[in-house]
């Protein structure tokens, strides 16, 4: 089965699968040796790592990137020129309040479908798409959806949950740490995390925190659970509607993200927020002060260059100090 690689959450895996192709959400790893895209001042480390990982992968039959961030939009230009795999740019509107913007996204999914057919996929009928939406929805096996994200030895689920499970298996409870003091519920938000930076969750746990919710781009903020309501009429229209409303700070206006955050903070009683972003990620970086003003809770901003800093003593110390202040 041909594999289609993507990383943006606005790409519905169900749509790819419905074409008889294998969706793979690529969470980039460091690529050794010659890089397709060199280190360039101002270039987002995640975007660069994604492009280099794609270029280094041998089992990729197609790549889809989106316009949700300018850097990835421009990565498309380079991928087209530098790799021998078909690349598709999915136009995801920044605005979301108009019917025409929603229609544009739906039209883009249809165009994406034609790209998939050109790659050897089969245009899905309603039944096939419904079947895939069901497969990825109710109690979905996230390991199917995100095989790169969830190593086989870990149970499926959003990363925060994965790490909670890991921690429990290490002998700790979700509410108490090894010394018996109460753990600090923390929300984690931010952009995507490269594979090695996912250690952030473990570090938070080890520093006495408890992941109240995972609002990173690879966490439950972006995972769409489509139940049968979405299948009652045109499944593609409803799939598009569900994905189109993923709350993200890059939308204009980004009030849906704040609404999501308000609900998460209220329902999970988080006492602080950790925001992670890569350097040169303008959209998350710019949001930090506003979120801080808005939630009136302590916040810690961690930025990284994608060199595995999340496991560094410096970051560990900062997280530790943050937890101590919240205890």
């Amino acid at each position: 089965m041909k594999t289609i690689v993507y990383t943006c959450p606005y790409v519905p895996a169900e749509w790819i699968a419905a074409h008889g192709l294998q969706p793979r959400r690529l969470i980039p790893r460091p690529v050794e040796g010659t890089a397709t895209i060199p280190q360039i001042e101002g270039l987002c480390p995640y975007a660069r790592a994604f492009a280099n990982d794609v270029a280094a992968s041998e089992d990729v039959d197609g790549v889809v990137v989106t316009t949700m961030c300018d850097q990835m939009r421009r990565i498309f230009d380079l991928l087209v020129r530098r790799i021998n795999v078909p690349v598709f740019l999915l136009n995801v509107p920044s605005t979301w309040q108009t019917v025409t913007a929603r229609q544009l996204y739906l039209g883009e999914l249809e165009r994406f479908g034609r790209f998939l057919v050109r790659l050897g996929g089969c245009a899905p009928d309603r039944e096939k798409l419904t079947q895939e939406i069901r497969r990825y929805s109710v109690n979905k096996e996230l390991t199917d959806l995100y095989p790169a994200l969830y190593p086989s030895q870990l149970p499926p689920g959003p990363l925060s949950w994965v790490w909670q499970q890991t921690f429990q298996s290490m002998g700790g409870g979700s509410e108490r740490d090894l010394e018996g003091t109460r753990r600090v519920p923390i929300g984690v938000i931010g952009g995507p995390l490269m594979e090695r930076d996912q250690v952030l969750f473990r570090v938070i746990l080890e520093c006495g925190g408890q992941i109240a919710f995972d609002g990173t781009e690879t966490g439950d903020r972006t995972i769409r659970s489509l139940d049968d309501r979405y299948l009652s009429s045109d499944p593609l229209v409803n799939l598009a509607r569900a994905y189109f409303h993923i709350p993200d700070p890059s939308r204009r206006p980004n009030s849906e993200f704040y609404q999501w955050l308000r609900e998460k903070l209220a329902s999970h009683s988080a006492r602080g927020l950790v925001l992670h972003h890569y350097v040169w990620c303008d959209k998350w970086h710019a949001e930090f002060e506003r979120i801080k003003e808005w939630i009136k809770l302590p916040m810690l901003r961690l930025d990284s260059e994608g060199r595995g800093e999340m496991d560094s003593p410096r970051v560990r110390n900062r997280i530790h100090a943050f937890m101590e202040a919240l205890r």
Partner: protein
Amino acid sequence: MSETPRQIALREWDDAYERLRAAGVPQPAYGGPLGRHVAEGDTRLRKLRFDNSLAALRLWDFLLTEEDRLQLARDAGKKLVGTMKDLGTVPVMASSLDNLVAFYPDGAWWIPCVMEVNSGLLQIADSLGIDESFCPVRAMLGAFVTGAHFPIPDLLTCSVGATCDDFSAIAQRLNGLGYPILWWEIPHRRVPEDNEGGVQLPGGFRAPASLVRFVRSELERIRLALEKLSGRVIDEGTLSRGIAKANHIRRLLAELRQAAFTATPCPIPALEMLIAEMLAIHFCSDQEETIAVLQDLLDEVNRRVAAGTGYGTADTARMFWVDPVADLQVMNLLEDCGGRICGTEYLFAHALDPIPTDVPPMEALARMALADPMVGSATDRAARIKAEIRRFGAEAVIVSRIPGASHCALEGEIIGEIVRAECGLPVLEIEVPPLTDAVSPSLRTRLEALVETVVNRRSR
């Protein structure tokens, strides 16, 4: 003034101005000695060198008095429209009505340069979490907070989608501070697929008809907002007249560019040409006066071309410049190093191309908006740059990165790769911060090296 063209310092201009005034040479209402702007904080002017023509003086005075003009417009009961990011589209619509005045708050990106970072705008942006990792356009935030550099507009619009992340993020921060914004979508421009209807855009690119229709619907939302603000209807006739005026300005600029980039010696310096080209985007809040200012400049240039006077010689290295500079002084520096401008792509090529007049006006504006270099691929930009290089006979390309700008990280790489391969020209990528004083020696060395390379290549 029929003096030999030469660049003069501010003090010399002020002395010359006094002589002109005493001689009774007529000046526009906004005219005066340029030195008065230094007293208002525009201290960078002391370090620039200006063309010594009356037309250039008028251009500078016009540019530096925009804030006064906006205030006068408000006092006269006109409504102000702050149009952000689209660089040339919404002002054409707003200017169609005589009770609306459009301007670009984005223009604040030059304030840190012109006021030599003494305005405090960047510090305000810092305090709002928008630090130096963002494009200098972050100064706009400070300008809104202080209200000291332009009146707060009655309506704010901002194009988003296929734009730079910096601007989108900064505009969202502004929105979060309580400034309502009418967001409109400009999608990434792509080529039509097989069996998908395509539309020819100004500038030569093609886009799917569906994308043009989408942009047109977005611009209809802008039209409704402008109508509501002005209390008047923007019908097709009104819009067509607005487009005709914009096209008049574009024609003047086309003539100016043709003469400035091809005549030898060069009839007008790079700095004045940069300012002149910028007028196409925003008309400096007065469309009629823009026409008069550009006509003056064109007349002066034509006089010089006819007289064979100007700057440099036939040996001067012919450079194509990509992206606008955050520090105006760099345009002077290029000439110091033995270069001249023969072609530019300052990120608003769509504001220089004639707006189509053979289709309904909203359709024409949608096509123009989609022709924006920013909304297409870097490969598209490179294609346009290649065509202009050939047209103007440039011998090298300078890509001047804007610090922190999301599009600059990769665009230069792609444009450089294509231009080197397909035009066989040397490409230099530099970064120009709002004040280059600290990096001026290294910038100079790099520009001189490029000039040397150009000269050496001629002898091969």
